[in-house]
């Protein structure tokens, strides 16, 4: 509306400098009204601007948006979640119960239902902040979510995931790392392919960061490429060596094995005045160690006065080779080998090295046998490490066994897992936390609620501490936990 712009110009400069007259307005506004020019320009301005204002308001017509169009979202293939589950989602969001949000999303995904459209913006916003939830959020948001995300560059994850190569070639450093992280989980060989395609043009810092990402899902097939790398930088070389040390078939691990295998032997001798045979494991600490082993990362000197330099070297070497190699080497099972190591004080000092080796090479059988057959001292010092390294179901079973002995060490580890605790484990944990009311409060129960089975709802009263002063605290905490478990129950029932 040009006439209005003109009036605004007059208004800005003021009627003293730029008076507004009736002929400044278009005839179609002034023609039907008799306008006598006033003596004061302010009066003229207000009368004419008032007239134009009324004309502008009353004569308004719709904007022509014919040139602006947008295609609608595709039809959904799956039904929407129930109104009850939608209202539970709102409760979860308003109280920021993220662990329960994951459960809610998993329920949607497993029951093949979609989130109500009105929740999609909130979920896409979460997806932009929490990358680990992106995939599941995109699934439950359906076609509507895909359509909506394309309208907002900050939510356009669909395009991002579909064009891997262009992100790798032209993306920002963080985007590239994120892509590599995702591929490392979903398609490890593709991640190596990408790295190879641009390796020579990457800077030392980028190389180091990318190699760190390879630690996830490190497999035997990565070895060939890692061993072929000829790097100048010490930082990059040290990471490469460290990675290769975790691959059983790598040259460095083989070199360690070739050094250590002949130094550790099983010897059978006579005991009790020659009346019985006694079989023991011997670690020949004086066995020659080639200089090349020290160049490959083994330290020569011990920093612990109670451990000799030789013991330190053999300890490192035993912890650097896959423990399953000993099964083949001695043709014995794990239990026998552990028991043989335990028999003599001289060999028992190397059992912690076997713990480290089992964890490093992710050998579940060895981890379990070490927990089953080791001495109490060793278990006390390494139960946390071993339980953390065990996969879900085994972790639950061993945690139940050791929770009484090491509750404070195991509970933080158990809070990190994704799988729900078994009823037995939850019972054992709650029995402990209910008595430690000052240390375990809302900040513990909020994340723990997704891990505690809803069956515990029936048993909460049974955990009431015996000390009177703790009872009030537990009542408050148990009410809070009961509420959280009730929401969890509603989630499970609403799908």
């Amino acid at each position, binding site marked *: 509306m040009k006439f209005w712009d003109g009036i605004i110009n007059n208004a800005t400069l003021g009627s003293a400098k730029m008076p507004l007259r009736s002929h400044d307005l278009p005839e179609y506004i002034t023609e039907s009204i008799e306008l006598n020019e006033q003596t004061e*320009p302010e009066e003229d301005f207000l009368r004419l601007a008032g007239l134009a204002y009324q004309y502008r*308001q*009353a004569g308004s*017509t719709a904007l022509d948006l014919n040139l*602006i169009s*947008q295609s609608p979202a595709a039809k959904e293939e799956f039904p929407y979640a129930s109104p009850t589950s939608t209202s539970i989602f709102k409760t979860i969001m308003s109280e920021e119960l993220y662990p329960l949000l994951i459960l809610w999303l998993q329920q949607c995904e497993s029951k093949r239902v979609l989130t109500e459209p009105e929740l999609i*913006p909130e979920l896409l916003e979460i997806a932009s902040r929490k990358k680990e939830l992106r995939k599941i959020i995109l699934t439950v948001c359906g076609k509507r979510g895909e359509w909506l995300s394309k309208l907002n560059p900050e939510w356009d994850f669909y395009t991002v995931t579909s064009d891997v190569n262009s992100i790798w070639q032209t993306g920002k450093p963080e985007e590239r790392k994120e892509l590599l992280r995702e591929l490392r989980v979903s398609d490890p060989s593709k991640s190596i392919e990408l790295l190879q395609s641009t390796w020579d043009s990457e800077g030392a810092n980028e190389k180091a960061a990318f190699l760190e990402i390879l630690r996830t899902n490190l497999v035997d097939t990565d070895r060939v490429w890692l061993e072929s790398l000829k790097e100048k930088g010490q930082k990059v070389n040290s990471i490469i060596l460290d990675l290769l040390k975790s691959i059983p078939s790598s040259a460095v691990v083989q070199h360690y094995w070739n050094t250590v295998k002949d130094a550790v032997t099983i010897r059978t001798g006579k005991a009790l005045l020659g009346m019985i045979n006694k079989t023991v494991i011997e670690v020949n600490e004086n066995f020659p160690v080639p200089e090349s082993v020290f160049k490959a990362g083994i330290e020569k000197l011990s920093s612990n006065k109670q451990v000799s330099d030789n013991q330190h070297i053999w300890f490192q070497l035993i912890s650097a080779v896959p423990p399953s190699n000993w099964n083949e080497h001695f043709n014995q099972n794990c239990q026998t080998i552990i028991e043989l190591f335990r028999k003599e004080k001289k060999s028992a000092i190397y059992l912690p090295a076997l713990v480290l080796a089992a964890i490093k090479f992710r050998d579940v059988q060895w981890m379990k046998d070490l927990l089953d057959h080791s001495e109490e001292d060793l278990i006390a010092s390494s139960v946390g490490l071993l339980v953390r390294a065990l996969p879900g179901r085994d972790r639950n079973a061993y945690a139940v066994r050791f929770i009484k002995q090491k509750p404070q060490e195991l509970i933080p580890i158990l809070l990190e897992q994704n799988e729900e605790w078994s009823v037995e484990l939850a019972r054992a944990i709650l029995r402990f936390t209910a008595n430690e009311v000052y240390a375990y409060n809302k900040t513990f129960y909020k994340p723990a609620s997704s891990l505690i089975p809803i069956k515990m709802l029936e048993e909460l009263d049974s955990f009431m501490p015996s000390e009177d002063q703790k009872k009030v605290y537990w009542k408050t905490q148990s009410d809070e936990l009961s509420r959280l478990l009730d929401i969890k129950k509603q989630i499970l029932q609403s799908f």
Partner: protein
Amino acid sequence: MEFTEDQIFSLAPDESSKKSGKELANPSKWSKRQFSERALWGECQGSGKLPYQTQVDLSNVAFKCSCPSRKFPCKHGLGLMLLYARDRKLFSQASEPDWVTGWLDKRTEKEEKRVEKKTKEKSVDPAAQAKRQENRLKRVEEGMGELRLWINDIVRNGFLNIPGRGPAYFEAMAKRMVDAQAPGLAAMVRKLGSVNFFQDAWQTPFLDQLIRIYLLLEGFPRMESLSTELQSEMKTWIGFTQSQEEVKAESGIRDDWFVLAKQSDKEENLNIERNWLYGLQSQRYALILQFYVKGQIPEVNLLPGSWIDAELCYFKGSHPLRALVKQQYGVKQPGVVPGLPSWNDVMGSISKILAVNPFLENFPVIIDNVIPIKGNNQWMLKDEAGGGVTISQSFQFPWKLMALSGGAPLKVFAVGKEHEFEPLGVWVNGNYKLLV
């Protein structure tokens, strides 16, 4: 009557009440859960010896609880109603116990007495009243004269230096208008000073407001030549209030009213609640404005998205929107609200209203089949004919609106004027969704 959780949360006095209400929306917390045609009640074990008795009037939503909380509604009332909304099967139908019947009967009796009392004319001394009126008119006219000079000053010097004048410049004139017993004009002057001088083209809203004030100043001396409705309208804008008793004394419009939206605002310690309603038979919009301080109970509780059978009385004015609930008879089953077919039809109907009332600033509209779209970095609502309006910059939920639409046309309730509207609710597959 179906209640949604959002509707119930809209009644909560604060966030902590919402949270506590959710905690209590758990069957295990209630030893008794029952309902009748007109009420809902339950017993909740609190920290005391006896359980709290909580009750909800379902026909004219209200709460009562024996707990000591000073919040209204308390967490028990909210929790009970939430539980009812979530799963009605948890409640058994029963005859009302004495403590429920007593409260409901008292409410009805009180309401009747209140209406009766308010409708009775107050005894006034007409001579004294006329004298007071005359004095006030004189003071208002004097104030208007000063305001006119002030406006002329702004027009003469131009808007260039206005942003640098600061709030005191406007506040001084607003206070002068309060002294002149023209609080309406004072509010208009304050609004003039509250224009955002940092936004692009601030001159237009500033000039619009200046012109509205000018129209009042020009129209006031010529009042007798105007229609009585417009006279009332102008008096209201200047600050002559109409008492609620006077308004309710008139016969109202009994209709099935759909509660379209509730907008809440806070000004210092005062809560301002704007409830938008639409009458199915009368096809009229109504704005129920409520003002109350923290801790005070609003006179009526209206649930957005619900239907009520009520008699509403409009304030006097030209095409008035503001109204009061004279009496509420209960809740109604959902009806179908008709919408206008295009934005040009909306503009046409607004033009007709402006012809009788040039002071109205915002217009409520229900329009069918509009698609929310984004173009030129702006959110818009496009109708089937390709016409459209922009969505106000202040609108906070454009993505929710887009998600609900999915690019398909929707029936929308919006408030605005000219080319700028703010959507407050939409119908999706016949269900009304609030944009909050």
